[in-house]
């Protein structure tokens, strides 16, 4: 399988006044297309910084980031916006849906920034919502949806531009365990059936167990990177 992500000697240093705070201290990683990776670590371990860099939201202080072979670290802000739009789908802990905006329109949002026209946009948004099992709730606004449903809308939004990569930052952090299971099952389904590459940040071991590969961060370094023997096939897919 082809290589999707390669980072080499990735450093990130934040400046808090005069104090330099290193968040990443030299990360080398490669992620292959179709992988389901859990990035773990306690808060302050650098995993969020790592995700922000992978998501083209933040620049590394030093080091290289290749996405599908392209060195994206040196691109302009507008080119980053284009990559975020086309090649990356984000799922957040707090869902981050637009309030007072229907599920359908929330899913259409990324397509507003890449020139899709009304009909096609609508059609693709409906498809994405069907895929996450919310085909019946197209015109519900977030305040009329449960947390799990809101996260499904967010996943549909992440999928709708058919990205090569989904970055999920603590996607189950605001959900109860049953709903968390459902969301994780959905991710597994996307990974298995669509071959979607998923990188998931979590600090819960029982969430990370759904992934093929577990990477553990500590103090800005990768301290463990292992394949999960409990392969996704062994977990029952309820989605």
């Amino acid at each position, binding site marked *: 399988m082809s290589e999707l992500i390669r980072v080499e000697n990735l450093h990130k240093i934040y400046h808090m006044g005069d104090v330099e705070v290193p968040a990443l201290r030299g990360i080398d990683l490669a992620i292959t297309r179709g992988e389901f990776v859990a990035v773990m670590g306690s808060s302050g371990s650098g995993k969020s910084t790592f995700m*922000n860099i992978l998501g083209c*939201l933040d620049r590394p202080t030093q080091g290289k980031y290749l996405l599908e072979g392209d060195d994206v670290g040196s691109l302009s802000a507008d080119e980053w*916006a284009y990559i975020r739009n086309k090649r990356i789908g984000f799922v*957040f802990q707090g869902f981050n849906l*637009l309030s007072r905006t229907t599920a359908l329109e929330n899913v259409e949002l*990324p397509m*507003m*920034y890449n020139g899709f026209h009304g009909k096609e946009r609508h059609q693709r948004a409906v498809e994405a919502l069907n895929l996450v099992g919310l085909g019946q709730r197209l015109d519900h606004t977030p305040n009329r949806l449960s947390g799990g449903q809101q996260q499904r809308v967010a996943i549909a939004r992440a999928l709708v531009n058919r990205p090569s990569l989904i970055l999920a930052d603590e996607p189950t952090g605001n959900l109860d365990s049953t709903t968390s299971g459902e969301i994780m099952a959905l991710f597994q389904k996307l990974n298995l059936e669509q071959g979607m590459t998923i990188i998931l940040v979590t600090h819960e071991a029982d969430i990370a167990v759904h992934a093929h590969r577990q990477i553990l961060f500590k103090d800005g370094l990768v301290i463990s990177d292992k394949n999960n023997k409990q392969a996704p096939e062994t977990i029952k897919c309820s989605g």
Partner: protein
Amino acid sequence: MQWLMILRIALRALARNKLRAFLTMLGIIIGVGAVIAMVAIGEGAKSTIRAQIASLGTNVLVVLPGSNSQGGVRLGLGNVNTLVDADARAMVRELPSVSFASPVLRRPEQLVAGNLNWGTLAQGVAPEFQQIRDWQLADGRFLHEGDMESAAKVAVIGETVARQLFGNDNPIDAVIRIRNIPFRVVGVLSPKGQTGQGTDQDDTVMIPYTTMQKRLMRITWLQSIVVKAVNAERVQEAQEQITLLLRQRHRIGQDREDDFNVRNLSDIAEAAQTTARVMAVLLGSVASISLLVGGIGIMNIMLVSVTERTREIGIRMAVGARSRDIMLQFLVEAVVMAATGGLIGIILGIGSSEVLKEWAQWPTLISPAIVAIAFLFSGAVGVFFGFYPAKKAANLDPIEALRYE
């Protein structure tokens, strides 16, 4: 991102906070409304003044006899008797810039018709007087050349005189007496209304200037000559040519003063117009200030809105909005508010100037140019005052914006 979609996003964002959007627009509404109404009042005043001046006759010059000094005593204007009807005829004949000239003699007289009498201004004039003053007839005819030659005892009366002496009867061919001399009424002038100074122009009787000279005043000279220049551009030229001609005709030497005086009515017109223009500019600028205040209101609310919607901006950036897209979104929102306010303001301004016209009888005049300018200006206010908040939104860091609570 397509324009239509940006517009839709902006409209929806505004619709979410209708009261706030309306209150923000109110500044622009009042500003534009005030500009439209104020300029309408100013323009109305200007056109009224213009009409009043036009009623005096356009491109008109008045030649008055000059002052005369005898033994160090300087008498006022009109005290020399050098101005004669031959001067008037010479002007028309010899000066290309002059189209008409008419002698004028004026004196208050008491008119008697039947058992009624009325004091009015008698004017001795030539047939050209009608063209010079652009004065239409309501009935009958004006004085003609034959009346001048024979010093005929005919009269053309103004509308006020006709009403006072004849009421609803037809005055044509009726006889009126001036100093016991019978005059036959041959025409009635159509009403011209008051002058800017409040003199009733229709309270007059016109008779041949020759009759006035011979039978009423027993003089051979003229009190004045009114002259019409060919067009407005040549008024100045006519003035200079008349001066030269009269100096020559009156044999005035190089070192001596004119024995006459040429007055230009367009000077008066210009002064009056300038006053009206100053007023319009003054009213307009006061109104523009309120438009400016409205713009600041928009900026204020847009800044609040950007802060409130930081998270939304972060989400949009995360899913692929470029800085430019965010900037446009907020800019369009500001412009939509300003332009909508502008439209409502235009309606309000036109409405209130119509109300003033209807109820207060103010002569307001809506100029389409001002309406267009006010609308464009309100749009420009939106761009100008929306720019900074939009720039601020566009420059947000997506990570910070997504974290914003």
